[in-house]
């Protein structure tokens, strides 16, 4: 009886105990007071998001009862309007939007139940399964790809912005000048190439990029790496009779790079521009001049001052970067033929009009973005003295 009660309300207890813990710590610590504030704010935003998403789904045509009855009519039963009305009241769809929303949100906060998917005829949690984690993995891999390329090259680009092509420093001798000029021109060219690539990344929509890669495969006469596995491996289990199947892993990796590369490129392009702008902004500040006047120069000046200070706004934007990457994922999923939650989202929105499924996926994405924002906020407040000063007073 009590065990039942707790399994039905487990999520609420977790949320409450986190809030309680934070409240208890916040009485003695200003930092935890700030964390508690952020926590409550995040929960509030989630509540509003769920309201927006839920009411957005009302614009989708049709509802669950109609779909269910339509399914029955294909089975040869005669259907009247009264049947639909009866089905509606059985499913509780005749209640007002606010009542339905509050029952959805109550189920969600009590036990993490995301509702019932009409098209799949099962609970959303089961229908979604680990597909959401798959999309999550794609997005994170795309983001990592973007950061790994964008951060070093964005810094390089900012560093090269006011540099000449040739070294004409009269203090250097002829040989030094030649060597420096070669290095400078090489870096300048690299910077130019990267900027052109990054502009292309902004201009080429993801689906076009995916299409052109597929097209290259078609011209080369090779099998196109769509989906996650080739036909041969999709039915095989990960662990065969001789232990872990490495061939399946290689097959997986030879397919997985395409979606990650495609969604990563646009993110890289944007990130490259952001990093460049941030570092340039910081490098124009007075403390950099002060450091230079003290005699700090070269790499240690660059890494120790402007780069170090431009990392925290970059870190702060991870949540929204995730949202931007996920935004592009559905269309890429359609082109490449993925079966993750983004493809499911398109299917639920455009084909089956599965309201609760689409609402659940959108809500989960918002949840990830909000929690990332929450985490980056509290980490920055703990680590960065400037942020700490501005938020803690």
């Amino acid at each position, binding site marked *: 009886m009590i065990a039942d009660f707790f399994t039905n309300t487990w999520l609420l207890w977790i949320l409450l105990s986190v809030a309680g813990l934070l409240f208890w710590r916040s009485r003695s610590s200003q930092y935890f007071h700030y964390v508690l504030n952020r926590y409550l704010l995040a929960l*509030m*935003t989630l509540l*509003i*998001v769920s309201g*927006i*998403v839920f009411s*957005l*789904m009302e*614009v*989708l*045509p049709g509802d669950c009862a109609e779909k269910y009855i339509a399914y029955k009519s294909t089975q040869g039963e005669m259907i009247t309007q009264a049947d639909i009305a009866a089905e509606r009241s059985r499913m509780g769809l005749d209640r007002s939007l606010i009542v339905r929303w509050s029952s959805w949100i109550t189920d969600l906060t009590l036990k993490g139940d995301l509702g019932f998917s009409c098209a799949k005829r099962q609970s959303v949690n089961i229908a979604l399964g680990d597909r959401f984690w798959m999309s999550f993995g794609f997005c994170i891999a795309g983001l990592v790809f973007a950061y790994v390329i964008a951060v070093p090259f964005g810094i390089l680009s900012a560093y090269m*912005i*006011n540099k000449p092509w040739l070294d004409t420093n009269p203090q250097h001798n002829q040989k030094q000048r030649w060597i420096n000029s070669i290095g400078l021109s090489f870096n300048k060219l690299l910077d130019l190439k990267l900027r052109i690539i990054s*502009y*292309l990344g*902004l*201009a*080429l*929509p993801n*689906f*076009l990029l995916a*299409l052109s890669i*597929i*097209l290259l495969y*078609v011209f080369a006469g090779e099998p196109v790496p769509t989906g996650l596995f080739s036909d041969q491996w999709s039915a095989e289990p990960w662990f065969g009779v001789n232990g872990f199947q490495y061939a399946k892993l290689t097959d997986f990796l030879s397919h997985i790079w395409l979606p990650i590369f495609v969604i990563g490129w646009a993110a890289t392009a944007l990130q490259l521009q952001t990093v*460049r*702008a941030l570092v*340039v*902004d910081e490098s*124009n500040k007075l403390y950099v001049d002060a450091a230079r006047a003290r005699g700090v120069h070269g790499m240690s000046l660059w890494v120790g001052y402007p780069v170090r200070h431009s990392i925290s706004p970059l870190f702060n934007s991870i*949540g*929204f970067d995730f*949202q*931007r990457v*996920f*935004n*592009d994922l*559905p*269309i890429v999923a*359609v*082109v490449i033929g993925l079966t993750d939650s983004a493809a499911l*989202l*398109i299917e639920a*929105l*455009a084909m089956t*009009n599965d309201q609760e499924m*689409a609402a659940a*996926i*959108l809500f989960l*994405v*918002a949840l990830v*973005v*909000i929690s990332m*924002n929450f985490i980056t906020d509290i980490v920055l407040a703990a680590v960065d003295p400037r942020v700490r000063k501005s938020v803690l007073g």
Partner: protein
Amino acid sequence: MISSVLARFGKKVETSQDESYYTAGQLALIKARFTRKASGVIAGWVLVSIILMGFFAPFFSPIDPTIRGADAEYRRGAPQAFFFWDEQGASLRPFTYTYTKDKPKINLRALLGSGGLDALDAFTSSGALSASAQNKYNVDRGQRRYVQFFVKGWEYSLIDFSMAGLDLDLRWDRHLFGVEQGDIHLMGTDEDGKDVFSRTLHAVWVTVSIAIVALIVKLFSSLLVGGVSGYFGGRVDAVLMSFTEAVRVIPSIPVYLACAVALSSMDLTAVQRYFAIAVVIGALDFATLGRRLRTHILTERNQDYVLAAQLCGSSGWRIIWRHLIPSFTSYIIVDTLINFPYVILAETSLSFLGLGLTEPVNSLGVLLQKAQDPDIQQNMIWQFFPVLVFVILIMAFVFVGDALRDAADPYSEKK
């Protein structure tokens, strides 16, 4: 962002045009800084010429892009290049050759006569139905067709104000170029025989005009949210901003999709649907600009000139519209231009999924959607011409936007 070009500009100003620099208005300064950046200026010219060609598309396109202008004799036809010389001598007037397609030799009577499956098998394996056989064409190099300029063609309306309620509809029937006999298909034709070049030109303006409508709607919704929340502050601000924050975290393309699905179930004409999509894209995109506006107004509303306006008895709306927003105009203009490519991308994404505009309409998204078709990828590569135009258009927008952002930043020439 500071560039060496801008830095040079700063030095020059100090020495020569001191006075005019310090008395110049904001827009004049932006213009001066913008013209110093070569990439921005070149991109600007490319952009203006593409958009003008799109706006006067009927004049620049030799063939009617609708089904009326479709060339039934030259379906799935390859591009027809024009030349100035060949082995028969040079000519100042460019010319093209005569292209003909073989009629598919489908002998239905033989099929009917024998009636057996063997005949059908023989017919299908003969290759008459395969896509590459349908793409074959013959060039008659002996028969030159000379390109004519300002030729008479189908009638179109050059500028049409009849929608704005004015009785002004300039009709014309001249086109920039055409050929003596038949049609010229610079970029080939599609499955229906419609000219790809003409369709692309028409599509450019449709797409750009959707973006313009969407950006105007976006501007108004952001002004409403940002202005109200910044001016009134307090509780109104808190409610509106938490709402904006929530909108900001929801990915936008799925939201557009949901609205587009809702639109597709309604019974709308092509024009209504087109405006509805533009309004949806614009109205839901208020979060970023709205927040910026609100921050700006929050800092500005405590300035003395606002107090003076209040003492003169101006209403809240008048202060927002006449005093606060003009102080922000240049930022708004630049932001709008920077957002152009993203709005165009949103439209093409929707059309690509078949939920935005649909086939008989010419929009870049509709034309891009065709690139998904394996038949087109393998046999009609010239239908990728709209993709090329699209990429150039977006690149031009991005470069212009970037240069404008640099130019509008008053701190960019500090050093």
